[in-house]
């Protein structure tokens, strides 16, 4: 048997979809028994959600006011205290997991495997390197806990027809106070979440201003799509950072991705490799985005996008 401790990501109220995708990865390990650990101020609601996830054998909860915000320095010692007896400790490769899991790994005295995209054996995994330009097969050392993050875009969320038992646990460790949460600014939006949306419309530098981005939003709303952006559009201040797609932004896998006025730099493409259908609208027929697009249209976006929005009526 292989015991997997999976660290749940949540916002205090809801489980983040990255957890259900990470469960799907963990379940691919032969003989896996997956336990989900919820660290929260009050873990009950999130734990109830986690207990419904298929392939989960048990949900462990730690309710502690210190866990109100996900601070790696506070969460890591609790995870390490509870990791005893587990062969694997997994988290999602979101900013939450990327921040937290290496700290856990180092405290356990092991290296970490980042961004698992497939499980090839009990200690063998595939992961992307060089912005996804190479896929490397890695072997974790036998006889040591395997700490890893899961590239969530490589997995489909497990279903939620389960009723796994929930158990409160006490890590019994002292927590540091050297790291303090101040505030979180989020771009409130009623649009589908970029990381889980079935359709995503992204705009690039070509939009030229945040006002011009309105045509992207209008098209996205017609398609009930989430909205993303290239780094250039974020850097120029047209849209907030949480909309960046790519190597250093979000790695997404929608069924439909529309890249509008985006050239297709490798750092951007690595974020959309798993998209079902990629549509590109660009006025330069030589733009590298056309090398990966399933449907390409050479056009001025300021004509084509409003026309497309209209045509979708």
């Amino acid at each position, binding site marked *: 048997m292989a015991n997997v401790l999976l660290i749940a990501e949540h*916002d205090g109220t809801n489980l983040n979809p990255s957890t259900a995708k990470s469960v799907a990865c963990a379940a691919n390990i032969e003989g896996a028994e997956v336990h989900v650990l919820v660290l929260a101020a009050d873990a009950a609601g999130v734990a109830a959600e986690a207990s419904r996830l298929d392939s989960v054998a048990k949900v462990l909860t730690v309710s502690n006011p210190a866990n109100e915000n996900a*601070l*790696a320095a506070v969460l890591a010692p609790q995870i390490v205290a509870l990791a005893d007896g587990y062969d694997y400790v997994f988290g999602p490769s979101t*900013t939450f997991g*990327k*921040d937290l899991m*290496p*700290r856990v*790994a*180092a*405290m356990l005295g*092991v*290296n*970490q495997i*980042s*961004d698992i995209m497939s499980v090839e054996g009990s200690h063998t995994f595939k992961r*992307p*390197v*060089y912005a*996804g*330009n*190479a*896929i*490397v*097969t*890695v*072997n974790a*050392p036998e*006889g040591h806990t395997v700490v890893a993050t899961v590239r969530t875009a490589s997995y489909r969320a497990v279903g939620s027809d389960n009723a796994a038992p929930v158990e409160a646990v006490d890590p019994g460790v002292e927590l540091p106070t*050297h*790291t303090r*949460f*101040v*505030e*979180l*600014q*989020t771009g409130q939006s009623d649009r589908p979440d970029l*990381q889980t949306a079935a359709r995503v419309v992204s705009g690039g530098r070509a939009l030229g201003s945040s006002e011009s981005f309105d045509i992207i939003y209008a098209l996205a709303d017609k398609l009930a799509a989430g909205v993303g952006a290239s*780094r250039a559009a974020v*850097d120029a201040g047209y849209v*907030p*950072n*949480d909309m960046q797609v790519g*190597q*250093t932004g*979000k790695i997404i896998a929608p069924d439909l991705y529309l890249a509008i006025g985006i050239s297709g730099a490798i750092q951007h493409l690595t974020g959309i*490799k798993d998209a079902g*259908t*990629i*549509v590109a609208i660009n006025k330069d027929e030589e733009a590298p985005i056309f090398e990966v697009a*399933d*449907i*390409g*249209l050479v*056009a001025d976006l300021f004509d*084509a996008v409003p*026309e*497309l929005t209209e*045509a*979708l009526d």
Partner: protein
Amino acid sequence: MEKILVGLKRAVDYNVRVRVKSDGSGVETDGVKMSINPFDEIALEEALRIRERGEASEVIVLSIGPGDAQQQLRTGLAMGADRAILVEADAALDALDRARVFKAIVDREGVELVVLGKQAIDDDNNQTGQMLAAVWDRPQATFASEVAIDGNTARVTREVDAGLETIEVDLPAVITADLRLNDPRYVKLPDIMKAKKKPLDTLALADLGIEASPAIEETHFAPPEARQKGIMVDDVSGLVTALKDKGLI
């Protein structure tokens, strides 16, 4: 504070189209342009600005890697770092060992702030800063887009999936740089000349008495699966038809 330590990794330049070797043993690096990992350049720029504001007195750059990494350290000195340390090691060193090297230098030098890039664009690991914070038992402020030092604390804004998170950490601490933290300065010719006179010490890994961690073995490299060739449409109505044909709208 006295000293800031910055890591500079020698990595394949971000403009290079990386190719996997035909025998699957790695990626082609012969004759390929090497540079400072872009995130590390941003980390160094931030450290220099902290020093220039009078909040620190010395910036030390550290590279762990082959002898050639001296080039990247010289660039760092030309940008304005005060001195450099090269810890000569096999390029395949794992992140925990790198973190232990940083920790050894932190102890030797009495460093109060370490600024690293959030990830290296070769292995894309995004681990070393967090691991250093763990082995040092100090705070970590990863993916920073804004840093303000205030006496013995640092206030750091972090780029997270939900937006921008601000945290406060006590020093000593580890900060890792995200892309929007700053725009690194350009190096001018006189700076390159001056950098030649700045101290660059070389240490062997063995000098630091670091215990090697259980290694992750990279057994095979392959190119990613290619996407199937797509179609070009002439106009918006062609695009709508193509989307309908695929059942997407």
